[in-house]
């Protein structure tokens, strides 16, 4: 069986998403968790591009705009996340995600 | 005559003194006592000025001051003085300094004491001089505040309870009066005493009230005002607050309460109730006469049963003030009836006014005497705790004896003239009431002589056995002016009747119902 380029792209992005998810779930270092989340985001970005490029109505530039927005938001999010990580580190001298649970109910 | 607002000066100088004492934080006890005394003497000085400019022949208020105050409510700041007011201002001027002198010793925090006392004095003067209900009522209620604190803070063991009872009872009575006047205001649009009295005299007051709320409305309002005043005098049986309050108050405050404050009620009867409600008062006068007789007779008999000297003197106050009311009610009873002469009414009313003044002197002196007994024996004032004081302190006994005989109406002393005129008048207006009231005279003699016999006669006993000093120089200042006035006014009552006779004659001249 042969795969269309869209399917190939989707497979790739699914793989990437799974790698990100597993990374985010299995790591206890908060920065690595963030990295995982970035990977998942990028998987989503690839999907945007793939559906735009190989989808039924490749209108002018829609997928690229979505991805650009997404990347910008991801960068901002990463900045906030890293700032939080630093703040957490200041308080408890490590960045283990399991121990950052002071705000639980 | 100068254009100085003399009456405002009279009223507000004591208040100014009170404020001054309040501000002088560092004043020594002696200095604050002296300051209080000086300010309290201002009334006497100013009333002598008033006496100079006063024209007894004019029966309308003199020295009138009138300024709009709250225009929307037609409230005026209005002061005026006639013979009745002048008599009471003089009395206040005499009793207050004497009362302050009597409490000169051993009172803690004399600055506050003096300030409260001056406030009390100012409020009483305001009551005697105001011609509009609004300021009048303001002063009337204002007098309770310092009185409450004087009793509560400087009083004896049961003082707190007595002070609360005194204030709440009196305020309770005043509430009825306030309600009555509110209704009057709504119906007539004015609270000026003279205007209201004129409206009452020509009968339009009753019409306006009837138009406002039906025929019985006048009676309801009358009853409200009556209760307010009756509690203050007090009219029997609204008197039960008085013995504890007088007994627990410190000596000076007792003197002021009985000497001046008890006159506020009688003044209210003469200034407000009688002129504004002549009709309802006449209708109720039969019952009121019975109540006044109750005060005269039962008051005296209750006094006989007391073992606390201050309570005894307090009951004698009820008895003596009931004579005033008896005379007024008898006049009201006879109003509009055929027979009684205006001469009898003039006698009764003159007697009332004299009795107010004379009782002020003699009761204050008696309280001062009991206070001196207390001061010498560490607060003892039981009838059975003394004996032979006359042996130990003959001069004190002599001065106290004059006060006592003045109180029981011995001729030659001031008490007799007032009582004789009251009896003379009441006999002409309602002979049976006079005959029954005679029992009060007898009982008064009985309990006062019992007091005298137990405390002053016999061998030295009880609290008198130890050191017992005779009258001290400071105490002469308290007793001698009062006793001297008793002697002078007993022989020369015209000094007072001169001031009030035209007014009383005018009152007695038109005893008609609207």
């Amino acid at each position, binding site marked *: 069986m042969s795969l269309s380029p869209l399917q190939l792209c989707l497979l790739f992005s699914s793989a990437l998403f799974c790698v990100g998810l597993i990374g985010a779930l299995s790591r206890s270092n908060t920065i690595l968790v963030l990295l995982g989340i970035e990977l998942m985001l990028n998987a989503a970005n690839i999907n945007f591009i793939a559906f735009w490029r190989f989808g039924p109505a490749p209108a002018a530039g829609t997928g690229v705009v979505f991805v650009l927005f997404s990347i910008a938001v991801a960068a901002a999010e990463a900045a906030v996340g890293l700032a939080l990580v630093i703040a957490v580190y200041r308080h408890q001298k490590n960045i283990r995600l399991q121990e950052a649970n002071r705000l*639980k109910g | 005559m100068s254009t100085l607002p003399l009456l405002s000066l009279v009223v507000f100088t004591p208040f100014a003194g009170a404020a001054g004492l309040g501000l002088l934080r560092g004043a020594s006890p002696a200095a604050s006592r002296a300051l209080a005394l000086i300010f309290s003497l201002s009334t006497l000085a100013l009333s002598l000025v008033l006496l100079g400019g006063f024209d007894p022949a004019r029966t309308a208020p003199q020295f009138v001051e009138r300024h709009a105050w709250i225009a929307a409510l037609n409230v005026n700041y209005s002061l005026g003085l006639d013979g009745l007011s002048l008599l009471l201002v003089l009395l206040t001027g005499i009793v207050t300094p004497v009362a302050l002198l009597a409490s000169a010793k051993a009172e803690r925090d004399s600055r506050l004491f003096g300030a409260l006392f001056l406030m009390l004095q100012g409020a009483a003067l305001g009551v005697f001089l105001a011609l509009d209900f609004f300021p009048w009522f303001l002063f009337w209620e204002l007098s309770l505040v310092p009185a409450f604190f004087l009793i509560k803070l400087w009083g004896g063991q049961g003082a707190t309870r007595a002070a609360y009872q005194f204030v709440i009872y009196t305020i309770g009575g005043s509430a009825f009066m306030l309600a009555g006047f509110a209704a009057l205001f709504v119906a007539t649009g004015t609270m000026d005493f003279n205007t209201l009295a004129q409206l009452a005299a020509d009968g339009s007051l009753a019409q306006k009230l009837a138009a406002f709320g039906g025929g019985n409305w006048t009676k309801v309002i009358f009853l409200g005002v009556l209760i307010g005043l009756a509690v203050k005098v007090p009219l029997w049986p609204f008197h039960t*607050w008085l013995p504890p309050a007088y007994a627990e108050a410190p000596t000076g405050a007792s003197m002021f309460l009985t000497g001046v404050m008890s006159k506020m009620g009688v003044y209210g009867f003469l200034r407000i109730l009688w002129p504004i409600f002549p009709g309802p008062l006449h209708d109720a006068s039969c019952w009121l006469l019975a109540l006044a007789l109750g005060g005269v007779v039962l008051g005296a008999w209750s006094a006989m*049963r007391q073992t606390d000297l201050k309570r005894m003197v307090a009951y004698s106050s009820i008895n003596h003030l009931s004579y005033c009311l008896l005379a007024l009610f008898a006049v009201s009873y006879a109003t509009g009836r055929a027979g009684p002469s205006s*001469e009898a009414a003039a006698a009764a009313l003159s007697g009332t006014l004299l009795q107010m003044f004379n009782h002020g002197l003699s009761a204050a002196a008696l309280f001062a005497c009991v206070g001196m007994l207390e001061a010498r024996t560490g607060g003892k004032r039981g009838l059975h705790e003394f004996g032979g004081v006359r042996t130990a302190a003959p001069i004190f006994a002599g001065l106290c004896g004059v006060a006592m005989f003045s109180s029981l109406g011995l001729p030659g002393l001031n008490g*007799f003239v007032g009582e004789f005129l009251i009896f*003379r008048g009441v006999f*002409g207006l309602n002979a049976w009431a006079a005959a029954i009231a005679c029992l009060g*005279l007898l009982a008064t003699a009985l309990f006062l002589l019992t007091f005298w016999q137990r405390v002053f006669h016999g061998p030295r006993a009880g609290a008198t056995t130890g050191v017992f000093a005779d009258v001290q120089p400071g105490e002469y200042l308290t007793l001698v002016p009062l006793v001297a006035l008793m002697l002078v006014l007993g022989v020369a009552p015209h000094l007072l009747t001169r001031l009030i006779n035209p007014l009383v004659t005018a009152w007695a001249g038109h005893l008609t119902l609207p």
Partner: protein
Amino acid sequence: MNLSVQYLWLIPALPLLAAGIGALTPRSGKAIAAGATIGAMGLAFVLSCGALVTALKDPAAHLVANFTWFELGHSAVRLGWLLDPLTALMCVMVTFVGLLIFIFSTGYMHEDANFTRFFCFLSLFAAAMLGILIANSLLLLFISWELVGLASYLLIGFWFHKPAAAAAAKKAFITTRIGDLGFLLGMLWLSDATGSLLFYDAGKGVLETSALTALVTQTTVGGLAVSTAIGLLLFCGAAGKSGQFPLHVWLPDAMEGPTPVSALIHAATMVAAGVFLIARVYPLMSADQAIATAPLHALSVVAAIGAITALLGAVIAVAQNDIKRILAFSTVSQLGYMMLALGVGSWVAAIFHLLTHAFFKALLFLAAGSVIHAAHHEQDIRQLGGLKGPLKVTFATFAIGMMALAGVPFVFSGFWSKEAILHAAHGWNVSHLPFYAGLVAVVLTAFYMTRLVAEAFFGQARSPASEHAHESPAVMTVPLVLLAICAVLLGFLGTPYWPWLQHTLDPKFHSEPGGGGLMVTSIVLVALGIGSGWAVYGRRLRAKASAPDPIEAKVPDLFAALAARLGFDELYAATVGRLNTFLADAADVFDRYIWDGAVRLLAGLGQFTGNVTRETDENLVNGGFDATSEQLKSTAKTYSRAQTGDTHGYLMLVALGFVLLVLAVMLGGTR
């Protein structure tokens, strides 16, 4: 020498001034106080003599000087002085007797610490008494009347450290005040009915024809004429002051005072004020005689009370042992005589007896005082005895006084004045009972006075006190002698053969014939009284102080009852006293429980309402809100547990949700 009526006020003013001086003199100034008092009294005596001269020029005239005390309404309260023979004679008597007693007192009270005060009070008394006499206004008379009562109170209680004296003073004041209330009411009525209280005022006074006519023609409760009612009320005052039944109880107790006081106030002058009052208002008292049909005449009551008192006093005096009390009851009895005379219409006889009685009773009291002074304050006649030896002057003068009082004929003044009264009583056409009462009292008087003299002066001394008795100094005996002389001579002013006094007092007086038989009767009765007295007490003289009285031995019950003064004090204590206590208790209970209870009930109701609203507020309204909020809070707590803080957990849930979503999409088909 003349004293015009305008200056009549000087007579009481002088002693008043002396009283003022006495009041301000320190205790050491004995000479000043006594000198001022005696000097003022002496001057007053001279002035009184001057007034008498003026009055005698025209005995029928009533000279007045009225003035305004103060304005009242359109009229005024007026007072005034009155000078007529009655005033003048009384003034002379009071000032003369008073002067002698004052002099006697300087000796009697010599050692008393409060000497100055004593003289101050005596002067006050004299001033007030003279005020009564010169008053032309019932009001002024009442004022002086009350002041006399005050002086009497002060002097009875002079030794106030003795509880008995203090109690007696109070009793005297209160008892007389009961009568005075009647006086006051009578005065008020008179003032109301006539518009005046002046006795004589150029036709407008209350004792003048127009006022009296008006008073007699009006009637009041019970059909009494107004004048009768007023007269009876005034008589209440007189009865109180003059110790008439039933208000006589205070007079014997008043003997607790120093003896000169008893002599001056409670024998000679003050107690006679009641008699004087009735004599003064006699036109008013007798006005109702004009109406024959009146249900009651004021004077009949006076006569009845007088007769009862005369008899009662004499009977009780028989069984007393205290020398002063015997004299006190004899005073009660003699005052009864005077009232009797007034009642039967002979006011001049009453005044005659008043004057003679004043002298001989003052004499008797002062002599008794001399005895007491000599016997170291022993007053019980059983303890005395044998005093006629050491106390010669006292005995002689006392005997003269005793004979004057008993009415020994011809020489002694008491005989003539008593004779005048009996004569008048005999001629009274209403009833003869008062006359018989008077006759019995004559016998009794002679009897108890004989007993007194026999017990006290004869026999042997029965106690150390009387053994060591010695005569008093001249300052005390000279007044006795002077009074004794007067007690003899005064009677000759009013004998039926030369009734000067009667004519002076009442120019219309004319003596009725037929006194001879009566005089014989009364001489026989006096002889009977003295004879029986001597037979019982004189022949077998008492040997021991403790021996029983001869009468007591015969009729012990009667004697005991008399000695207990017929139980009047107990009766009053059981009735009036109890009633008074009951009323006082009732008034107090009323106050404490009923009126104060009502107030407290009201206050309690207010508090109850307050409590109720507070409870509703706290439990119902606030409680509801609280419960709701509490519920919210606990729910929130439960749900907040979902936030575990485990970030991996959250992520896991997100992934799981995603997987479930994918599965749902795949299994649920396409669209």
